């Protein structure tokens, strides 16, 4: 009797193991996978530099030639404001022209074009929460391009999204004034060289033909 019971139990276990074993193995694997931390990508010291090079090429292909040269030479881009009465959340500019200085990973600075009076700082970021490399920060040139696209594409929305501060909160106003002065000098030099090129260009000579009109 006992022998028959043991035999039956063994047979039952053997049959059930076919069903249960794969499930148990699967569950064990899942448990291990859950506990395992995904391997961190190996640190590559050249990765950020390569990313920045790619980003610079993209920026260059999108912005105006003048803006690209400005970024290359001065490290920032000036974008003209398009709102009639100045950027949102200011006292208004009375219709005066204004612009923004766009720096990588720094607040956008609004200023009056004529007097260079600083209006506001707008701090805005473009965080990639997927953090593909443990960082949410875009390369410098991508950050500038994102701001340029958002400003030229929908200035009002970007400014409404940003955290606004009075000038001097994050960026030294003296530094901004120096940058505006550098920009003025840079533009003058550019105009001069454009003028020199025009005067250096020989006048167009009409080909001499045997049969005058």
């Amino acid at each position, binding site marked *: 009797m006992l022998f028959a019971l043991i035999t039956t139990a063994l047979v039952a276990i053997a049959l059930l193991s076919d069903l249960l074993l794969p499930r148990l193995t699967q569950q064990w694997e899942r448990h291990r996978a859950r506990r395992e931390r995904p391997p961190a990508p190996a640190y590559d010291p050249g990765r950020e530099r390569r990313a920045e090079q790619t980003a610079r090429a993209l920026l260059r292909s999108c912005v*105006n030639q003048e803006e690209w040269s400005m970024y290359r030479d001065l490290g920032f881009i000036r974008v003209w404001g398009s709102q009639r009465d100045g950027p949102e959340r200011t006292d208004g500019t009375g219709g005066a022209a204004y612009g923004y200085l766009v720096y990588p990973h720094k607040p956008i600075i609004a200023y009056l074009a004529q007097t260079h009076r600083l209006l506001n700082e707008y701090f805005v970021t473009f965080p990639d929460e997927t953090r593909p490399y443990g960082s949410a920060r875009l390369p410098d040139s991508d950050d500038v391009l994102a701001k340029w696209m*958002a400003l030229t594409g929908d200035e009002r929305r970007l400014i409404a999204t940003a955290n606004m501060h009075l000038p001097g909160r994050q960026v030294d106003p003296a530094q901004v004034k120096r940058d505006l002065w550098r920009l003025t000098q840079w533009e003058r030099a550019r105009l001069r060289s454009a003028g020199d090129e025009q005067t250096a260009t020989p006048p167009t000579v009409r080909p001499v033909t045997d049969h005058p009109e």
Partner: protein
Amino acid sequence: MKPGHGEVVIAEGDVELRDDELRLIEAFREQLDTGMWAAVPVTEPAGRRQARMVQTFDDIPRDADRVIFFPRAAGGAR
């Protein structure tokens, strides 16, 4: 645009081909669903370049050669 990467090509295709267009629409929606913003660099008639923000696939000019996705803007350090 991606941290540590710069530009990454997500999808390529010709909008005049139906299969390509469907694939591009799918990729476009996927990016917007993950919270990205989309912009198309355009050249105005006066020759000035600027960006056009797009929220639907139909907003993209048919002759656009690319759409750039970038993370949604957020207010920065307080």
